[in-house]
């Protein structure tokens, strides 16, 4: 499957139980029009054993479906086994790896890799520096506005930019687990509090407005970031890789909508209507792209 535009499915950022995780990727393999699938736990090392037993089967199914696979790494590694895990991710040669933390960098010099959206790349000087040491793709942080994305895309040599195009924006990561804390537990004794909320735990403002979603040690936007209103501008600035971040919605439908829009079969307004229909209870936002509050939704003129 070759497309002019590359649609990627980012790593599943939530804790789904093993069979659920496997079935999600089986469905993606069988039906989702994405080119590349990122696999691997990014948020919390305590979760890693859930998907582990199913990884080989998922890899096999995705490969047979013609999907390229990228192995994602941990975004925050402080304990020895977490640092060792990231080191192993960087050193293995079976998969291209996505670096989500600087700890992978020393092991990736001169080796093709992807730089994930949680590594801070805000300008072409940094992107080019990373490309010079082996990055083939740089997925930019979700908070970057269109103007920055366009400048980086234009000035980047030897690598491509990827833009976070759909799903709850990863906003922060902490040593503390707010998810466990919300359920009266600590991180060490979390009993996988985050497994109860496979699309994140909503945190409302004191006025009762949905605002954030807690995902273990990660804090995300409650709204689904949705780049469809800016797709035209992104394409004009040379971006051709778009990342969909898995949510508890019909991701096959999401991918199908993005694919149809990228190939010009669907206009962005209709795409938005269809996406909103898939998750009527969650607001969509795109403010980051337009340089305003990320939670806002800007209607492109």
């Amino acid at each position, binding site marked *: 499957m070759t497309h002019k535009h590359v649609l990627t499915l980012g790593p599943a950022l939530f804790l789904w139980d093993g069979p659920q995780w496997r079935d999600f990727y089986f469905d993606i393999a069988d039906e989702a029009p994405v080119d590349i699938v990122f696999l691997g736990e990014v948020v919390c090392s305590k979760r890693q054993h859930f998907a582990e037993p199913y990884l080989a089967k998922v890899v096999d199914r995705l490969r047979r479906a013609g999907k390229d696979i990228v192995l994602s790494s941990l975004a925050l*590694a*402080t304990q020895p086994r977490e640092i060792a895990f990231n080191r192993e991710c960087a050193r293995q040669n079976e998969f291209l790896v996505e670096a989500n933390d*600087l700890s992978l960098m020393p092991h990736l010099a001169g080796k093709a890799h992807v730089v994930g959206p949680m590594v801070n790349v805000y300008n072409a*000087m*940094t992107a080019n520096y990373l490309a010079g040491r082996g990055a083939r793709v740089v997925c930019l942080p979700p908070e970057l506005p269109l103007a920055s994305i366009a400048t980086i895309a234009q000035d980047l040599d030897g690598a491509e930019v990827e833009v976070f195009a759909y799903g709850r924006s990863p906003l922060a990561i902490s040593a503390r687990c707010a998810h466990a804390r919300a359920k009266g537990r600590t991180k060490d004794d979390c009993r996988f509090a985050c497994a109860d909320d496979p699309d994140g735990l909503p945190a409302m*403002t004191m006025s009762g407005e949905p605002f954030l979603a807690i995902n273990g040690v990660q804090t995300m936007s409650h709204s689904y970031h949705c780049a469809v209103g800016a797709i035209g501008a992104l394409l004009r600035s040379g971006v051709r890789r778009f990342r969909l971040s898995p949510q508890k919605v019909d991701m096959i439908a999401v991918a199908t909508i993005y694919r149809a829009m990228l190939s010009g079969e669907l206009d962005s307004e209709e795409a938005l209507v269809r996406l909103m229909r898939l998750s009527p209870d969650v607001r969509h936002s795109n403010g980051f792209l337009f340089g305003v509050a990320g939670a*806002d939704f800007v209607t492109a003129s």
Partner: protein
Amino acid sequence: MELICPAGTPAAFREAVKAGADAVYCGFRNETNARNFPGLNFTPEELGEAVAFAGKRNVKTFVAINTFMRAGDEQLWLDAVAAAHAAGADAVIVADLGLMAFVAREYPDLRLHVSVQAGASNADAVNYLVAAFDAKRVVLPRVLTIKEVKELTRAVRCETEVFAFGGLCVMEEGRCSLSSYAVGESPNMNGVCSPARHVSYREESGALLSKLGRFTINRFDQGEAAGYPTLCKGRFIVDNEAGYVFEDPTSLNAIRHLDALREAGVAALKIEGRQRGKAYVAEVVATLKRAMSADGVQREVCAERLRGLSEGQKTTSGAFEKRWR
């Protein structure tokens, strides 16, 4: 251990030097540093005078250029490095990889410190920055226990510096977009978090609401002390219950861990607070300096004094203690 002290103004800078700072850190009057607040920070001329003032008293000056360069406007950050170098700064504190590469290439004689905003939270990350950019010191993110600080410090080929007192980031520094999600301005891009110009207060049936942009970040009942609506220390409703979901309004105070930090091999302790006034800076610096050489009883006195200077008169040792997680 050195004591690294904040200065948002030339007056606070002089107070910090007089109060016993081993080094003072400050930034320029623009978005190249993470305390880009109105009325704060230094012109290149003021920095030159400050460096000279400190140098005469054997105190070092570090310049924080620790936001991420905006694409297309990189020159502002490159100029800041040139100005720090020209002023005779002892080190620059940098977060952006591209800017670190620039410093290492263009100013090999300028000492490079890795800002907390770089999010270098383990030995592999730190040693990479040492090897790639000849970093001489790393300021560690507030995500590590004392044990982890010690293990990291032993495993890295540069000095480590940790925050000991002041504002407490709950999220790993440099990897937080909560502020830009709410109001469009963030520490990484603009050098501000939960900026004052987006803060408002409103009364509603006897309660006081604090808002950041259009979001209600806290609600104080009558008689309850109202704090500043920093996002990660706001009250939110989860599972129908309102509470401090991420962290209470509190400050970091590691005074009880000074011996453990010294034993861990930490080279320097840092005080947060470039946005604070000169009287505050003078008192905190002097108190911490005293605490560093005090015995147990005297140190308790210092700890109490510092608590009184903290947000909501409440302090925590944060991630230094594992149970905080």
